[in-house]
């Protein structure tokens, strides 16, 4: 199995469009997963039928029994997250669920209650099986939910004996991105020729290098700024990162979004040819 993770650093560069097109091109050789559980979007194009739904629990929340509390303040002394107020009330939003308060409470007034992190869906789409998830509103531990999605998706890829697992990731370089990198064989960085996207791609590239994972670049909206495009190319040359393709800028892509189509289904011929060639190059890496 080859796990291909689509990332970008900066948001809005085209991760989901590329992931959807790669899913279509890989077809029955692959399983697809959306690891952006904060703001998942791949399902808007893949239009899945959810066959199984799993409630995923992760992390705990400190809940205090007011009647047993003797206002000794030990909980306030040990909490490092500012989650205990001066009158010893627990702030649910900032509680990390570490259990320190519960451990030191002499009256056993604080219990640690498991929390729902989100839902994981086992789905089918017009291109193949799809695992995706949705973080509960205000849910903690999106990294753990991402790890659970990766775990389910890898198992499914093995069970169905598929060649590829295509993962749509989230923006950034923190917890959920690191979780999506677990088991990855290749990271496809989707960037665009803007100063911010290039800056963010470099940070992402450092992260991937840190984890010693193979990386490749797709330059999306490649025609909007020639100088920045050249910056991407020289960075990739200096760091020995293959550029697997460029997708020119076309406003029609918004029509594909609105229709819920992949770029190939929208019949944007130049962009579709680029993506077909990108997929062929990715397979060879």
């Amino acid at each position, binding site marked *: 199995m080859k796990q291909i993770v689509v990332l970008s650093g900066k948001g*809005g560069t085209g991760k989901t469009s590329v992931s959807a097109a790669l899913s279509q091109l890989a077809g029955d050789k692959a399983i697809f997963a959306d690891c952006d559980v*904060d703001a998942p979007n791949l399902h808007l194009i893949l239009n899945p039928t959810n066959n199984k739904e799993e409630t995923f629990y992760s992390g705990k929340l400190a809940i205090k029994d007011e009647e047993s509390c003797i206002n000794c303040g030990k909980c306030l002394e040990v909490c490092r997250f500012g989650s205990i107020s001066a009158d010893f009330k627990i702030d649910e939003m900032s509680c990390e669920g570490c259990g320190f308060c519960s451990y030191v409470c002499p009256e056993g007034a604080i219990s640690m209650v498991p929390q729902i992190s989100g839902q994981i869906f086992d789905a089918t789409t017009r291109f193949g099986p799809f695992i995706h998830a949705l973080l509960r*509103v205000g*849910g903690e531990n999106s990294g753990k939910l991402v790890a659970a999605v990766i775990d389910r998706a890898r198992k499914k890829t093995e069970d169905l004996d598929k060649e590829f697992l295509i993962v749509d990731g989230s*923006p950034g*370089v923190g917890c959920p991105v690191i979780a999506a990198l677990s088991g990855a064989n290749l990271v496809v960085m989707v960037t665009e020729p803007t100063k911010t996207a290039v800056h963010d791609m470099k*940070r992402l590239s450092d992260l991937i290098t840190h984890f010693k994972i193979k990386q490749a670049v797709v330059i999306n909206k490649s025609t909007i700024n020639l100088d920045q495009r050249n910056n991407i190319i020289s960075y990739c040359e200096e760091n020995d990162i293959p550029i697997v393709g460029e997708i020119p800028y076309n406003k029609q892509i918004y029509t594909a979004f609105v229709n819920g189509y992949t770029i190939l289904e929208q019949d944007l011929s130049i962009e579709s040819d680029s993506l077909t060639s990108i997929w062929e190059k990715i397979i060879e890496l």
Partner: protein
Amino acid sequence: MVTIAVASGKGGTGKSTVAVNLALLLSKGQNVSLFDLDVEEPNDNQFLNLDLTHRKDVHLLKPEIDEKKCTHCGICADLCEFNALAVLPAYVMTFPELCHACGLCSYACPEQAITEVSHLNGIIEQGIINDNGNFFQGTLKISEAIATLTISELKSIAKERQDEIKVLDLPPGSSCPVIEGLRNTDYVILVTEPTPAGEHDLKIAIAVVKMLKIPFGIIINRFDVGDDRIEKLATDNNYKILLRIPHSDNIIYYYSRGMPLIDNDPESTKLFTNLISTLKEENVL
């Protein structure tokens, strides 16, 4: 004094564009501070081009085991809610990337074999905008998973400052880093685009903002591409649309070069002037 957060759910909708240009225009007459809370991919200074000075390092504590004292009793691993310690017969393995630095293991160890050692999580820098404005940004160290600590350091700087207006540029998504950014803010500007993904993630962001009971308004970026779904959503739910930004070649031109719109693009400067009037009408400013 007012603290305004700029958030979005979906990445790449224009949070930084709004935050930077709003702060730049406001700083012409008032004391303003801008905080880039997207510590995973801080981008505001790509447009501001300020000479930043180092303000402070943000450290995170991680457990270190003194194997001479450790009896491998396993209490630390049993208590750790984050699986950051594994006690093996001969030694203790720590997983620093999972550690939340709560301090429970070190406190509970009966042999005092665990000391907390600090390591770098991120840095905070600052600069000056147009004489009247102050800028602060946090940068998460590459390979660090937990972004909330550096964000909350920036938030404490914001809390201490006496500026008339504080603008916070939030990270994308809807989980811990966004919630940490939103806490104790007075108003939220949600930036979206009129596509299914823009709408989907806007709804998630609205759910989070409503949970925190913070008033909000919406900016539709690239309002003239996609369709009228955001307008409909706003009308049906009585949400305030603060501003519509067109999809313009000028904006792409300045954006891709890392140039602010204020003072460069007269059309956009007018738009942001209107935004300030609207925020005044809404009693935000």
